[in-house]
């Protein structure tokens, strides 16, 4: 059977094949990425955090950064190792509940009074081993040369270096390939205030300030819900107390 020869691809068709855009995002030309564990954020980031880069998770305390980091660590430790440079704020029981395999997380406790140089040195050593898929460190102010070096090491290791801070310094903002600013939109409780009330979770909005493989400016809404608590509440609502009601939301941002 004789078949007609396939048309020769032009540069335009090749480029179109590489840059298939959907909703302003490049979805075809994506490389390997570390999933965030949140599907909406993965979609916004084009698959997750690109491996071999620096990612900055920004937001004040009670913004949902740690919940996002815990989710990423859970993904990373399913098939590899992760490292956390801890300034004393780590609470492992909640990490374990998020699915993080604690036996695969190297915790380097540098203390709350550790200098930026010590933290950078630890990150340097950990990244240089090329054994960790994700490394988390406090977003301390460092010189551009240090961030450049850490970025290079992360690139060689194929790891994602997460820097957690209230704001990204100018240097970090430049060298980070991904910047996500987190904020809690709403807090969910399992009942009215009081002894029978429990914190069920919160809604986090993750605003992408900078991304390598997707258009910045998108926002993903991430539900951080403790399934164990909410299930217990549902089960107990009918038999324990009439005060218990469905989880209600209190917005923490002005309307």
């Amino acid at each position, binding site marked *: 059977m004789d078949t007609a020869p396939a048309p020769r691809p032009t540069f335009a068709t090749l480029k179109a094949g590489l840059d298939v855009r959907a909703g302003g995002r490049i979805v075809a030309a994506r490389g390997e990425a570390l999933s965030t564990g*949140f599907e909406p954020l993965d979609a916004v980031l084009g698959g997750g955090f690109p491996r071999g880069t620096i990612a900055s998770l920004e937001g*004040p*305390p*009670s913004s*949902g*950064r*740690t*919940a996002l*980091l*815990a989710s990423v660590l*859970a*993904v990373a430790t*399913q*098939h*590899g*190792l992760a490292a956390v440079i801890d300034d*004393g*704020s780590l*609470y*492992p*029981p*909640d*990490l374990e*509940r*998020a*699915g993080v395999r*604690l*036996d695969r*997380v190297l*915790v*380097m*406790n*540098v203390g*709350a009074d550790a200098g930026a140089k*010590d933290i950078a040195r*630890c990150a340097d*050593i*950990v990244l*240089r*081993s*090329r*054994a960790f898929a994700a490394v988390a460190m406090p977003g301390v102010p460092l010189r551009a040369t240090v961030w450049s070096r850490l970025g290079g090491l992360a690139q060689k290791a*194929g790891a994602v270096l997460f820097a957690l801070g209230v704001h990204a310094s100018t240097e970090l903002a430049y060298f980070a390939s991904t910047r996500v600013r987190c*904020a*809690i939109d709403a*807090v969910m409780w399992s009942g009215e*205030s009081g*002894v029978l*009330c429990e*914190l069920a979770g*919160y809604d986090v909005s993750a605003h992408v300030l900078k991304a390598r493989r997707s258009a910045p400016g998108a926002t993903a809404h*991430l*539900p*951080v*819900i403790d*399934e*164990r*608590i909410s299930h217990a509440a549902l089960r107990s609502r009918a038999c324990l107390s009439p005060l218990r009601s469905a989880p209600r939301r*209190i917005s*923490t941002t002005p309307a």
Partner: protein
Amino acid sequence: MPAFRLSVARREEFPRRRHDGQAAILADKRDRGHVIECDAAAYELGARPGQTVLQARAASGGGVHVFVHDAARSRTIWHDMLDALDAVSPLVDEGGEGTAYLDMRGIAGETQDWIERALRALQGFDLPVRAAAGPNKFLARASTYASDGDIGALPIEVLELDPRAVERLHLLGVTRLEELAKLPHGPFVRRFGKEAAVWHDRARGIDSTPLRPRAHELQIGAAAYGEGSAEQEEQVYFALRVLAERVCGDLARAGKAASLVQMTFECENGEVLAADSGFAQATGDPRTMLDVMRAKLEGLTFTAPIIGLRLQAMQLEECGAPATLFGQNQADPQALAVVLARLQAATSRSAQRARVRPSAQLETRFAYDDFTVPKAVSTHQHDTCKHRHPPQLRLLAVREVEVRMRGNQPLSVDTRKVLDCAGPWRIDDGWFEQPMLRDEYDVLLDDGMLCRIYRQGERWYLRGAYD
């Protein structure tokens, strides 16, 4: 090696008359250059490194022969010599061009055997070599000058001092190592500066400089020998393709790309032909490599069938992520042990692993153990992972806060109004030793902070924030 670069230049220029005894200097240019090295005879005549060639000629009365330095050639020969020394000891420290230190600890034989082995390894280069043994690097090097073993009688120039320091020491009447060693350490260091402490130590035979073994250059290549002969170009191209794939596989594993590939053909009649294929951009792709090599071989005719073929990747560049043994799902215990040791050295703390344990108190619900390498796991487990996203508590440095209450519920924390709260949960622990009674609350403040506070006694504390 005495005046290594000069010896190399002399050997290259006069391969048969290299030991003619004529005073010689090595310069970067023939006429208007500067002297880099001079041999003992030229030194006696007054030539010194750093002089211009004209000055050296004038100082020596015009009786010196000038050689021109070829840095690339000299470097190549030096690397070949270091490679030869690898056969004597696995730890070779390159102490600059012309000087090498070998760590012979644990190697069978006596001192004289070691020296003979080293000299034998370098015999083929036909260059003047001195070898000696010593307990440290300085004594080993100094011993090469002292044929009778009397190191104290050596001039202080052996210490490779600044010429001005040598001049000052000469003015003080110190010309030999034994004279320098007799000087009191403290006053000498105070007078000549902190670097003088090293000179004085070395004059007394103390040298703490560690031996730094040179890094071995990565060699990536593939060869096919003894598999018949090739008379047709298809056979050669087939062999080239196989070898290119092997080379590219090794390149990928090392995370490298090659800018140049050297092909070496050995023919049946003993003829050896080498051809270099350079790439505009470093590559690790076998198809690209093969295409360029084919273009290079286009129109080439061999006089006899080819019986051997070798490909050598050269000018390697970093490229991509190397496929290491501990790539994400299989941790290399040795590499991790290095990380743990480095972290310990850098922070004076050991790397840890968290462990959760049952406890009533928030602070004691976890503990840390020393980190050890976990067992490798299958990547299939990733697919079965179910994502859970419970609220995450972030511990803060415990600080006292002021809380106003209405009934059993907090009304405000410091100046911030409480919008919602859960609790209290009473923790009554440690009744058998130090009783601890604590009421914990989760509160949402009007500035958006969601935190854990507790009351212990009459005081209130902030423990952490949900993040």
